[in-house]
């Protein structure tokens, strides 16, 4: 744990990328090898299965500190981070000696699975009693998950490349996919040769940057290709010898959620990797995202969903063709090879091309973009015809040109403190619109304002609290905000009957009195627009 705690302290103590990179590189050269593997796993979002619940942790920690649970909760509300709250309230360790390694710690935690509550409590208390404060914080984070050390996977990969001399792109590819840290040796993870078969491993996704100025800034329209920006699940479909897999952008294997794709395993040529969007498909265009969402988080997909909202993959790029990695080829070439490949498939498969949108010039394209909602799209994608399929977010070759979001004016009725760096500010708000003389809550939002605005609102909340429910305050309905969002759906689960997609605060409308906010009827009208 000691090297890991030192790494954490170094990363936490700086906001500079260069310093973080240096700390990580040094760690990957000097820490015990099994610890390196776990660190890579944690920084790429793989964490051991939970063997202790958050509720147990709170109770054990409060007990060890001799504090009532309510005081623990008050402390947690202030700190905003469970692992840190526990590290701060525990009494000083009595037996602080050489702490176990990260590998030993995680394996010991995994071994707790299935043991009695008493046995697990004793084991955790024993560890707490041996660790200093930073190590305790990290140990608690191993249990609660949510490891964010301010390091992106890209930065971690770069440090690993510097530490080992292995090519960064090779490592990025290697780290994706389904390896398990408890069964993987560091040497295998960073081995130079890749001949042992790629299996079902996906390529790192290329990401588009938002186009903020008009497309005129991109130069000659002839150099660009356009298509719809779909509102679905970005996915990579792998068809290789002995492997058929669908990966989400979050590196999650989602093959099982989409049983209707199974026939593709029989018909796609071996050595094919497609980048595309999984959507729920109506007669001739996608259904709203909510239809797709219904099957996320389910183990099995009910038959009715397969019938009502069948999934379809809209292909927009070909990364591997006939077993050849064609990512370095120009986009236009890859697109042509993809079209040829799809044309050779039999009819009736749940796979189609994401259409290439022809346009005469930027003004023409702007007019097409305005019709995106009718096509059930969020806007347009622009790709440079000569661009290779790059790794990660490289500005300049791929752009997303989204529609301007929708917005409503609403009043804040509840406020809650934020987490992490905003632990001391009220940043999570619930908003309401009018229904006759009443206020109907319809969405939460917690981003879009500056720190200074949050600070001002925090002071206001202090003076205008009507009621407290734990960390939540009911406040005077006085502050009006413009809430922007990307989509709207019917939702019987919500009191308002609607749910917004990506709501955020676009602006604090200090100029607007509460009696001029929007109404629930107005929101329902938008629902009809969304339905087309």
């Amino acid at each position, binding site marked *: 744990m000691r090297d890991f705690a030192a790494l954490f302290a170094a990363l936490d103590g700086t906001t500079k990328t260069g310093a973080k990179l240096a700390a990580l590189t040094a760690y990957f050269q000097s820490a015990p090898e099994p610890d390196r593997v776990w660190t890579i796993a944690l920084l790429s979002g793989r964490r051991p299965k939970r063997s202790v619940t958050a509720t147990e942790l709170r109770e054990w920690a409060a007990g060890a500190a001799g504090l009532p649970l309510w*005081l623990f909760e*008050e402390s947690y509300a*202030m*700190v905003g981070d469970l692992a840190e*709250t526990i590290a701060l309230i525990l009494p000083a360790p009595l037996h602080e000696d050489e702490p176990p390694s990260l590998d030993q710690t995680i394996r010991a935690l995994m071994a707790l699975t299935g043991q009695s509550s008493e046995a697990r409590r004793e084991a955790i208390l024993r560890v707490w009693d041996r660790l200093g404060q930073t190590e305790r914080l990290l140990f608690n984070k191993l249990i609660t998950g949510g490891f964010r050390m301010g390091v992106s996977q890209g930065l971690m990969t770069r440090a690993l490349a510097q530490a080992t001399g292995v090519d960064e792109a090779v490592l990025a590819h290697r780290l994706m996919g389904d390896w398990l840290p408890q069964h993987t040796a560091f040497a295998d993870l960073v081995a130079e040769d890749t001949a042992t078969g790629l299996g079902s491993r996906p390529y790192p996704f290329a990401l588009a940057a938002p186009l903020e100025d008009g497309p005129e800034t991109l130069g000659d329209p002839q150099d660009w290709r356009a298509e719809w920006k779909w509102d679905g699940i970005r996915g990579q479909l792998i068809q290789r010898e002995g492997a058929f897999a669908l990966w989400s952008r979050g590196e999650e294997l989602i093959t099982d959620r989409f049983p209707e794709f199974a026939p593709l395993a029989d018909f796609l040529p071996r050595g094919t990797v497609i980048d595309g969007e999984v959507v729920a498909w109506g007669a001739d265009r996608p259904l709203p995202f909510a239809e797709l969402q219904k099957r996320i988080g389910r183990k099995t997909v009910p038959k009715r969903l397969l019938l009502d909202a069948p999934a379809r993959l809209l292909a927009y790029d070909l990364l591997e063709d006939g077993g050849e990695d064609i990512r370095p080829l120009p986009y236009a070439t890859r697109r042509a090879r993809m079209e040829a490949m799809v044309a050779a498939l039999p009819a009736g498969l749940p796979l189609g091309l994401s259409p290439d949108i022809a346009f005469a010039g930027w003004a023409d394209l702007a007019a097409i973009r305005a019709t995106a909602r009718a096509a059930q799209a969020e806007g347009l994608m622009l790709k440079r015809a000569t661009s290779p399929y790059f790794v990660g977010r490289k500005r300049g070759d791929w752009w997303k040109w989204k529609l301007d979001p929708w917005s409503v004016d609403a009043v804040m009725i509840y406020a809650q403190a934020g987490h*992490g760096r905003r632990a001391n500010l*009220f940043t999570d708000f619930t908003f309401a619109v009018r229904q006759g003389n009443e206020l109907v809550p319809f969405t939460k939002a917690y981003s879009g304002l500056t720190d200074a605005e949050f*600070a001002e609102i925090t002071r206001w909340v202090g003076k205008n609290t009507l009621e407290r429910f734990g960390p939540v305050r009911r406040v005077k309905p006085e502050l009006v905000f413009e809430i922007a969002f990307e989509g709207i759906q019917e939702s019987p689960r919500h009191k308002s009957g609607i749910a917004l997609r990506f709501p955020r605060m676009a602006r604090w409308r200090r100029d607007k009195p509460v009696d001029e906010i929007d109404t629930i009827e107005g929101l329902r009208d938008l629902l009809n627009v969304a339905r087309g």
Partner: protein
Amino acid sequence: MADPVLTFTDRGIYCPAGDFFIDPWRPVDRALITHGHSDHARWGHRRYLATHQALPVIRHRLGQIDAQGIGYGEAFRIGGVTVSFHPAGHVPGSAQIAVERDGEVWVVSGDYKVEPDGLAEPFAPVRCHAFISECTFGLPVFRWRPQAQVMADISRWWAANAAAGKTSILGAYSFGKAQRLMAGVDPIGPILTHGAVEETTAILRAQGYALPDTIRAGQGVDAKTHPGALVIAPPSALGSAWARKFGPVDEAFASGWMAVRGIRRRRSLGTGFTVSDHADWDGLNAAIRATGCERVFVTHGYTAPFRRWLAEQGYDAGIVATEFGDDAEEPLPEVAE
């Protein structure tokens, strides 16, 4: 039952039998002042009473005032009560004020800190019946490490910066915290000060407090003339154009709030040192226990949870709303009151 010795009014804590206020926030005839921070020593009262040690800074800040000094532990009769001032350990000259009427003692803590810091007169508990206690850090997550350990961390940070050719800029409140830091670090190089810090430092040094030599940063005094320096400045100077003039710099902030990682990160500061002039959770509890009191009124901080905690410990505990705490060491708006 007799009238309470102290009452709580919208001008401040009031003693009816002596007709005076303690740290009032609106103009009054007679004000007893615990210490020189601006949320306690305000302008506009007709007469002031404070410790001899506190007066120079108060005079410097408030200008021409009608003020009388008193020694620690000295009994002073006002109307029907006897008042006395006792060290609070918060900043140089700071005091708790005890008010006694016919054997019944009430103590107003002002701001206080239990751990001796080598500069402020060390906190001395006063036996009393009722104790009015601040609780700026009245949650169990606030527990300070011994000062010597934190000072060693700060010295190491300074040395590492100096070795890397960087100026160390340390943000700290200009009265109390700043002087405590300059007195506590290992002087491995010159200590430069922001003007606001230097003025208070000069006053305290003239009073006889043991402070190292400092140099006011400014014309002709910068990173070129004093490489590897430690610059002590008010928190507002961090990240400013003034701070950037020192060339490559590393900035840090010294405050009790730095104990919480989320707060430290919110200020986008890599380095935060947990140094507070207020009592931590254990200090608050120990101080209250040491008074032997039955009644506690809490103010200035996490009053609601701290009051409930004290009530569960068997105290007759209440909350007093005051206007303290807008200044001394709270760089951040508070969530819990």
